[in-house]
């Protein structure tokens, strides 16, 4: 009789063979040449997600007309119970039907939310323009690439005012494998090097132009709080008002700190880190993780690679001194569809034996970081 291991290895061999028989994707368009650069990569990702989620028979009436961008939100279409979808990392909020679900990152866009069944969607990403073009130059290059690489039927484009910010708005139809989607794309000037791209799409044959235009009219953009700020090690100070402190000295780590007395053992999510504490409650909430890692896993480059593999984006980092020991501290923005809080400040503190005390403090966007700052200001090396 076949054993589990024999069966598993036969199944694995079959899977390897089948994977090897499948064509290698064309990587020509991923050529990392400076000329094409990141815009191309993002455009590719954008195209992929559009393809992914959609495509359309473009039924926009008069394509020669400028798009009617409504500066202030109109009423929700009949039967729609609106809800606010806020993406603090992007400084974006937009109204969508209340039964839509965030879909996380996909194919290069960092954020998405979709209807169920998936007949309409919103995608968003913050895209740096390293070429330093103006908004029109950026949007024109993006449109040209989309038209060259995809079966796009370009509709009207115009400059517009979106929540008081200059934006380039473009409507197009995308056809693929006999499917069609109608898409309105907003490329919004954030005032810095970054462009905020918001894509609002609908799938035919349902036809939800009113919904798509209403969603577009509700886009609000704020500056991305803290994303450009440096990260520092705060000066030690007493606990915030109303916080009762208790010392936490996780075993082996070589570090102690003060925590709010009501924090509980464990993290809000599954983790292999043995030492974890989190604020009481459910869902995304502040937490701290602590571990002692050897030089290979604990050095800054290795830790950064691990974060990037989880989809994190490093906002800032610094070399600091913690209780007399050299350390690095970095602030990361993590994917928001996880229960792990989206903002994570991670320390790697060098210990005398070459190991690192690695401590991560996470908190959801919008949460006052005062408690988190106080916790990290209290770090005491015990090893």
């Amino acid at each position: 009789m076949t054993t589990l291991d024999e069966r598993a290895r036969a199944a694995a061999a079959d899977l390897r063979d089948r994977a090897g028989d499948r064509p290698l994707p064309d990587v020509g368009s991923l050529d990392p040449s400076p000329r094409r650069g990141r815009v191309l990569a993002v455009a590719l990702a954008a195209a992929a997600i559009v393809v992914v989620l959609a495509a359309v028979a473009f039924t926009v009436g008069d394509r020669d007309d400028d798009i009617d961008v409504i500066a202030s939100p109109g009423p929700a279409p009949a039967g729609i119970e609106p809800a606010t979808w806020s993406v603090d990392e992007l400084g974006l909020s937009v109204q969508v039907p209340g039964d839509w679900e965030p879909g996380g990152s996909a194919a290069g866009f960092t954020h998405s939310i979709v209807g169920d069944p998936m007949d309409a969607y919103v995608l968003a990403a913050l895209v740096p323009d390293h070429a330093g073009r103006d908004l029109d130059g950026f949007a024109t290059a993006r449109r040209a690439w989309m038209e060259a690489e995809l079966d796009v039927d370009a509709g009207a484009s115009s400059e517009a005012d979106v929540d008081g910010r200059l934006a380039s708005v473009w409507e197009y139809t995308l056809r693929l494998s006999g499917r069609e989607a109608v898409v309105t794309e907003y490329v919004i000037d954030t005032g810095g090097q970054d462009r905020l791209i918001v894509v609002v799409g609908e799938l035919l044959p349902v036809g939800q132009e009113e919904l798509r235009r209403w969603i577009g009219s509700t886009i609000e953009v704020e500056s991305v709080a803290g994303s450009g700020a440096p990260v520092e090690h705060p000066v030690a100070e007493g606990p915030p008002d109303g916080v009762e402190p208790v010392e936490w000295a996780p075993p082996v780590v070589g570090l102690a700190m003060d925590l709010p007395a009501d924090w509980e053992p464990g993290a809000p999510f599954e983790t292999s880190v043995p030492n974890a504490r989190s604020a009481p409650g459910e869902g995304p909430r502040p937490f701290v993780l602590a571990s002692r890692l050897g030089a290979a896993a604990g050095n800054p480059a290795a830790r950064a690679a691990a974060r990037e593999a989880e989809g994190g984006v490093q906002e800032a980092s610094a070399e600091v001194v913690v209780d007399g020991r050299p350390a690095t501290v970095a602030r990361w923005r993590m994917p928001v569809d996880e229960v792990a809080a989206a903002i994570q400040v991670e320390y790697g503190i060098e210990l005398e034996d070459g190991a690192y005390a690695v401590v991560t403090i996470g908190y959801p966007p919008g949460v006052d970081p005062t408690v988190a700052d106080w916790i990290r200001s209290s770090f005491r090396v015990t090893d």
Partner: protein
Amino acid sequence: MAVDGEPRSFQSFMAAEHAAILAFARAVSRSWAEAEDLTQEAFLAAYQRWDAIASYDKPGAFVRRVVANKSVSGVRRRVRAAAAVERLGPPPAHEDEVADPEFWAAVAALPSQQRHVVALYYLEDRPVAEIAQVLERAEGTVKAHLAAARRNLAEALGHDRPDEEDR
């Protein structure tokens, strides 16, 4: 990784690793369409960071971790699966053909960490220590997940409970 002092190109890296990554993605997902989408996302992530990743000893481990991480969210997986169908249209009859669909369905039903570990164990014949390095987990954790995965698979598929393998 540098070869003869020259940095490895992304193209050669992708050509060398694509089949293995795709097989891993298929093992931790539910269809070839979803696996191809996961694989594309993972290689895109590597491409966008290639200046740094090219210098890693094992850049393939980075891509496998991305696949593993991106495969775990239920909502994301649902969106991706639906999206992949939208992208590709109705799959041809042979699209999700595998020789032992019952086995891979049982793998897909495992908790995520067990799924990742058992996929690397059987697909890539990696010892526990290497799996721990790839997934950046403690060896003891990987060993525990592997043992649990094999017990669960044996139960689900009607095999005798496997002996502990220690390698």
